[in-house]
């Protein structure tokens, strides 16, 4: 292109090179949920996984989410992942991403004597700690449960944040697992104190440890919400074209907002826990900390939970999931893989179309499960169709 005008005024055509992205080229499951053995080769664009209920569609997406997050987002008991009467399960995926592709695998093994299920994670067939796998293949999972993000309980909103943190901040993962542990210990002690056992003078040491990890986690979540808020507002606009303003705010129970410094947040949490010690003993549980915090969604300055219509709430959920996609892309430097489990049928045709168009424009690899054949796939150049029946996956000839 030759340009004679002064170069400062020239806006060049956007480069045609697509944004770097992460795609799953091959998934293998072995004795995983209802699968005895299956290998699926996915395309880089839209992958439609079609089948009746309870045939194993969701289990494929679960296997991918388990590889990306190192544990299943669907269950807290790894034993659920093992096929009936089997003692080991495997999920393995080839991930194509810059700078180099990798193979991720996670194996679950039940010890026959203790019935405990252990997990072994590996990158390129070499055992690596789970934290080394997190963030390698960023994914955004969107499933019917997410539709309750606004109106449902706060645990869904906390999980929404923690899944993002786990994929973008390795320190957060360490603090999360230590926080879970110290919370269990502190609650056990409070429970003992309530029934007249336990050592009252040892509560303070668990309070100190809890406040340390809790403050860190609250600050990380609060900063994440601040980063997601403008992305969600933009996404809502892109999705609906409407001018409603959505705002997100991290809403702790013990203080109006989390101080931005971890030290200050730790002091506030410590003070609260010490003040409420008697009440905590009476109830036998920890009453403040990130396990009780929430996220507030406001639409045009009013709490969306109470005032927004069903349709508006659904738009907010979609906007939040798109904000998640954009945040992960920004932090990971690659477009994340999108897993849509049975949600498209929950959306009206217009929202469905806009969502798919935005994902296609973002060059994401998208895996969709559906019970009804998906007809509109606007925007996607490469579309592959699969049918799942009784734990067997076949690629459809079209």
């Amino acid at each position, binding site marked *: 292109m030759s340009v004679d005008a002064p170069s400062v005024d020239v806006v060049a055509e956007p480069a045609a090179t697509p944004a770097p992205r992460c795609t799953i080229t091959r998934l293998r499951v072995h004795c995983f949920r209802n699968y005895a053995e299956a290998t699926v080769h996915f395309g880089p664009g839209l992958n439609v996984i079609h089948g009746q209920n309870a045939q194993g569609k969701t289990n494929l997406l679960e296997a991918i989410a388990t590889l990306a997050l190192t544990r299943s987002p669907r269950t807290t008991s790894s034993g659920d992942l093992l096929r009936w009467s089997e003692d080991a399960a495997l999920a393995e995926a080839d991930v194509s991403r810059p700078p180099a592709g990798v193979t991720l695998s996670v194996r679950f093994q039940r010890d026959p004597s203790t019935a405990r299920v252990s997990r072994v994670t590996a990158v390129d067939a070499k055992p690596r*700690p789970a*934290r080394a796998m997190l963030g390698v293949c960023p994914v955004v999972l969107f499933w019917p449960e997410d539709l309750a993000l606004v109106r449902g309980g706060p645990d869904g909103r906390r999980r929404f944040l923690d899944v993002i943190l786990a994929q973008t901040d*390795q*320190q957060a*993962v*360490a*603090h999360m697992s*230590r926080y879970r*542990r*110290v919370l*269990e*210990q*502190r609650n*056990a*002690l409070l429970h*003992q104190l309530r029934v007249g056992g*336990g*050592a009252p*003078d*040892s509560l*303070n*040491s*668990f309070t*100190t*440890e809890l406040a340390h990890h809790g403050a860190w986690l609250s600050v990380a979540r609060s900063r994440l919400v601040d980063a997601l808020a403008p992305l969600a507002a933009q996404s809502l606009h892109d999705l609906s074209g409407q001018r409603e303003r959505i705002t997100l705010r991290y809403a702790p129970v013990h203080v109006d907002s989390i101080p931005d410094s971890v030290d200050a947040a730790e002091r506030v949490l410590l003070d609260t826990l010490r003040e409420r010690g008697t009440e905590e003993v009476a109830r036998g549980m920890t009453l403040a900390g990130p396990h009780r915090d929430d996220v507030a969604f406001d639409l045009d300055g009013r709490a969306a939970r109470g005032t927004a219509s069903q349709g508006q709430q659904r738009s907010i959920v979609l906007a939040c999931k798109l904000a998640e996609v954009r945040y992960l892309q920004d932090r990971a430097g690659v477009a994340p893989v999108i897993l849509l489990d049975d949600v498209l049928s929950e959306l009206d045709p217009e929202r469905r179309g806009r969502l798919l168009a935005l994902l296609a424009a973002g060059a994401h690899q998208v895996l969709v499960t559906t019970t009804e054949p998906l007809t509109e796939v606007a925007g996607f150049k490469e579309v592959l169709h699969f049918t799942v029946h009784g734990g067997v996956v076949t690629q459809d000839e079209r």
Partner: protein
Amino acid sequence: MPLVPEAVERLAAEFGRLPGIGPKTAQRLTFYCLRASAEMSQRLAGALTDLHTRVRPCSRCFFIADGPLCAICTDAKRDGSLLCVVEEALDVLAVERSGEFHGLYHVLGGALSPMDGVGPDELRIRELEARVAEGEIREVVIATDPDVEGEATSYYVAERLAKLGVTVSRPAHGLPAGSDLEYADELTMARAFAGRRAL
């Protein structure tokens, strides 16, 4: 009828109880003993028996000893004003390997864990207070594990000792020497940076 004689099954089952020994290794060890001389088995059995008849906890620090006091407590060259608190006897060996510490030890016998029913009374904290109250100890280093339970225990012990007017310290968290930075986990790295020092 079982495939192998009962004596073989029994030894394999006992080996299988040991930490880090799976059923296959237990079998291999059993068959090794079977092939080796009867004297070797006698020596092994004798060593195991002696372990409990000849070894007992040191009455002062609860490290392992073959008399009333352990080798560290009876060593006159040790600095009696310095005390290192650890969870288990094995931890004493870990600190000793460093060659950096020349004081005495106190083995707590675990860490606070309400979930497992372990409170202060289950640990040797009163014995620790009594030792410190004698007045000779000036500094106590609390070297409990850096996990949640170990950290809580260190806060607790520090609190209990505060009244006794003794200096209480905790070893710095740092990067493991002799390994690459990239292998340090995130919390270790963060703590090492938080505790950095000027050069």
